[in-house]
């Protein structure tokens, strides 16, 4: 790997502060790498916008002294508001839209000395599992350009995997950080619901949305999370929980740790090679002193049906604001209703329209109780499954992150088949739990991720286990 992502973010920041490495050189190298994988090069289409001069100006203006991310290039998903670059959500509805304010997570990155080197591609409004549903073209997987990077934060995952930056921000509603991290062979963390401010994150499904972090390594992800986490009075769901830098979990002993292996995530239909890689990751934990225990989460099979009722329902409400009156695209019509309809019908892509229709349907008179209320009850059962397992002494769970490796571009045409790509990740969003995906090896040359799920606000345990897997597997995690 070349570019700044070849060096750990923590080491980059230290070297910049110590004068051993020039920040301007680091930022230029990040943009050079973005050019190599951009149009005319590998054409990964992972970045939707960037501004080299603005980034260099920001780098030159960094205050003196040690900063957690001093001079570290960071990529931000394009549904997170920034002041200097557009925030399009990969939608024609918001094409060219520039936010008048910035997200709390972006401000925290900048305050920590990070340099924003680009906004990354995504499935439109974060709705998708492949980054093929972007109005500005699909992102390609750096590991195999004929394949998807996963989604919806595929651009951020690809940017880290391609070496543009060691850290990128994504957003999670049903697995949109962990699944692309697995597909691209990087680390992806979805924090506990409430751990990170969503102020400035364009809402998709508010009871599920959470900002997440990609890192080339577990420590990169830990450092990125430490910078953006913490209470924000501008987000009513933001929790006043203490924030720790989980980099301190590296090398922490695992003796006494109980790791659950939920049988519902290892069905007979799952590719045995993926099972073998996850079991190898579990074995590294056992060898380090952890106990591996078979457990059951009996309502897991209901997670996809429940999620794809709840998320579209919330999406249909949140996206009502994109009507031509206040934001971005306006298509004139004969009267106000005609303008709304023309704007939304032309501005939204097929997947967004599908979900808005689905959400409107399940919330409509006669269907609310049968679908939406029922899905919320099933959501409670899924959360209870986790609570019961954790109450019986299990500290975290280990599962595959996704049921397959990255699939070829255009290979999945059926919407529900695409939704099944999230089958192992949506449960954590429904229950509000933290999760992390770490590289566990490859199948047919394609990355496979092992997922760790934990108790609410117990990211520390997940990082402790993730560091152990990373250290034990070494380069085997990428072979």
């Amino acid at each position, binding site marked *: 790997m070349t570019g700044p992502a070849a060096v750990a973010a923590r080491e980059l920041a230290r070297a910049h502060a110590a004068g051993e490495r020039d920040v301007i050189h680091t930022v230029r190298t990040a943009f050079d790498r973005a050019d190599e994988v951009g149009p005319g090069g590998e054409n990964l289409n992972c970045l939707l916008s960037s501004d080299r001069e603005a980034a260099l100006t920001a780098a030159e203006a960094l205050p003196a002294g040690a900063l957690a991310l001093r001079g570290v290039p960071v990529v931000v998903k394009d549904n997170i508001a920034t002041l200097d670059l557009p925030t399009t959500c990969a939608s024609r509805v918001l094409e060219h839209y520039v936010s008048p304010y910035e997200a709390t997570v972006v401000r925290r990155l900048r305050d920590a000395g990070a340099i924003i080197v680009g906004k990354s591609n995504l499935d439109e409004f974060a709705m998708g599992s492949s980054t093929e549903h972007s109005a500005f073209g699909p992102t390609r997987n750096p590991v195999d350009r004929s394949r998807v990077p996963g989604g919806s934060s595929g651009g951020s995952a690809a940017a880290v995997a391609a070496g543009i930056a060691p850290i990128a921000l994504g957003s999670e509603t049903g697995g949109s950080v962990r699944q692309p991290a697995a597909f691209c062979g990087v680390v992806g963390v979805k924090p506990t619901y409430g751990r990170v401010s969503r102020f400035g994150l364009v809402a998709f499904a508010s009871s599920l949305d959470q900002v997440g972090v990609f890192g080339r390594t577990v420590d990169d992800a830990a450092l990125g999370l430490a910078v953006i986490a913490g209470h924000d009075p501008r987000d009513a769901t933001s929790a*006043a929980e203490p924030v720790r830098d989980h980099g301190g979990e590296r090398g922490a002993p695992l003796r006494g740790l109980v790791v659950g292996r939920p049988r519902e995530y290892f069905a007979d239909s799952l590719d045995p090679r993926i099972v073998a890689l996850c079991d190898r990751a579990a074995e590294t934990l056992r060898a380090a002193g952890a106990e591996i225990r078979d457990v059951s989460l009996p309502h897991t099979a209901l997670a996809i*049906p429940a999620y794809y009722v709840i998320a579209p329902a919330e999406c249909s409400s949140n996206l009502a604001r994109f009507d031509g009156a206040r934001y971005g695209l306006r298509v004139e019509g004969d009267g106000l209703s005609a303008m709304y309809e023309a704007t939304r*019908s032309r501005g939204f892509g097929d997947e967004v329209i599908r979900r808005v229709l689905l959400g409107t349907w399940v919330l409509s008179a006669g269907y609310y109780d049968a679908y939406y209320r029922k899905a919320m009850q099933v959501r409670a059962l899924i959360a209870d499954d986790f609570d019961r397992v954790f109450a019986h002494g299990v500290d975290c769970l280990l599962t595959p992150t996704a049921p397959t490796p990255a699939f070829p571009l255009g290979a999945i045409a059926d919407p529900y088949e695409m939704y099944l790509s999230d089958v192992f990740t949506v449960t954590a969003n429904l229950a509000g739990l933290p999760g992390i995906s770490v590289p566990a090896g490859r199948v047919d040359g394609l990355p496979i991720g092992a997922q760790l799920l934990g108790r609410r606000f117990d990211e520390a345990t997940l990082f402790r286990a993730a560091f152990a897997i990373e250290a034990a597997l070494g380069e085997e995690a990428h072979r």
Partner: protein
Amino acid sequence: MTIDEAGLRRVAALARLRLAGDRLHALSSQVGSILEHMAALQAVDTANVPPMSAAPTAASALRADDGEPLPLAIPRDRFAPAWRDGFFLVPRVASHEGEPTGDA
């Protein structure tokens, strides 16, 4: 679950969407197919299960009303074409629809 095109057209109108014939046809088939998978929910006994609308958090929605003003990229009065007495003045988007016309 079968969704006829008239039903989907009604839902599309609620969602402020206008769908042309072949797009409507494809979407009614896709949405119906997706809803068939949701039927699995109906088989679950949830008689005594309270709905979970969001994940529990340690957050409190209530706080003192003393937040700092939002730092904006440009002054507030430049977000509108005109500004008077602390209010935006904006061009009329369209005339009101559905209002009674004629003499009162």
